[in-house]
């Protein structure tokens, strides 16, 4: 199975669509017959899963955007979120 580490470059797969749900004003990932409501932290990560940044870069950008946030903890969150996307088959592989 795909290993998600700091160097991994995540990209949402073809079947997943990230969309701002205008009713709840929250981001959602919609995919075949299912939907995943994202909280703000998850949405911030999902928006960066575009195949141009590694997990480490995503964590660094998020840390910079939220001053004082611990980078290591953010990186763990990114790994966890991206792993969840992998398990659901929502990553481009």
């Amino acid at each position, binding site marked *: 199975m795909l290993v998600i580490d700091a160097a991994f470059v995540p990209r949402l797969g073809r079947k997943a669509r990230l969309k701002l749900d205008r009713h709840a004003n929250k981001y959602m990932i919609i995919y*075949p017959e*299912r*939907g995943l409501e994202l909280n703000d932290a998850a949405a911030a990560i999902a928006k960066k899963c575009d195949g141009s940044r590694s997990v480490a870069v995503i964590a660094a950008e998020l840390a910079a955007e939220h001053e004082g946030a611990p980078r290591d903890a953010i990186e763990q969150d990114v790994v966890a979120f991206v792993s969840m996307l992998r398990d659901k*088959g929502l990553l481009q592989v």
Partner: protein
Amino acid sequence: MTPRPYTLIAELTYRCPLRCPYCSNPTDYLAYKNELTTEDWCRVFGEAEELGVVQLHLTGGEPLARKDLEVLAARAREVGLYVNLVTSGIPLTRERLLGLAQAGVDHVQVSVQSSRAELADEIGGYAGHARKLDVMRWVKELDLPLTMNVVLHRANLDEIDELVALAEEVGADRLELANTQYLNWALSNRDVLLPTREQIERAAEKAAPHRERLRGRMDVLFVKPDYFGATPKACMDGWARRFVQIVPDGRVVPCHAATSITALVFENVRGRPLKEIWASSPALLAYRGEAWMQEPCRSCDRRAIDFGGCRCQAFALTGDAAATDPACHLSAHRASIDTAHAAADAGGQARRYLYRGKPPNEGKTTP
């Protein structure tokens, strides 16, 4: 508070070249001649999106029978819905599939009747299996997500390994191993379709390791049928709660079998905006929430989990749509299901299906 529906199941037509003996269409499907127009559906998709819907299932019958399917898919995509095409794959060409993908179809679900061509064609009452394999390959060639759906019953339940292998071979992203729900046509064919309890156990045991092995590559779904449990399933996540369905003539219903509940009068999107129907149609309010419940559901801890089960099944098996689903061990009517099990375990009925529709070529029909 009025719940938000996330999914619209648009049954565009009940026409279909196949004749599956477990079909979820109403047994009086031939009476649905007055199909909604292209304009009606286009308006309704916008109304559904306003109501909160994000997922759209274009289904039937066979949605490909609608010549305006491309227009409908494009409109649905335009208003931001995720467009699932639920099809038998008959009749489809690669060109039309390409056109549908360009129009906005996001995902294709193809039904397969068996891993063995001969049996598949017997079950579907139509020689279509070979074409379905082509269709599934085209879907992947066009880089669309693919679900292979198999309705499971006595004749194909022992094929789990073969079905998984087929799904892997065609590159499916999801495999739905969907045990038959005994409503509509499936209820008419229950004595032939119902598997033995041992078959179900074996199939569940076989599916589990595939699910683990394929995690992240293919989502393997195997849901044990409600007949085989002690408590019912949360049918549709509750009556008129997360799913809204529209039948070909425009009536708004909560699920596939709801029109079988003869006392309910469902309102039509031709006469009133979807939003108003969803919020106040007496038929949708009838079993929404918990107020309608009788004992034992009324005081049961599981009522917020399974919503008392399926209203259509309660009606079909007890004559009272507000009764506890007989799939529940606490139902006074559970015996009707246990009797069916006993008959199935003892060997069941010979494989002679009651098919919908007329045979495609009289005189040369399946056994």
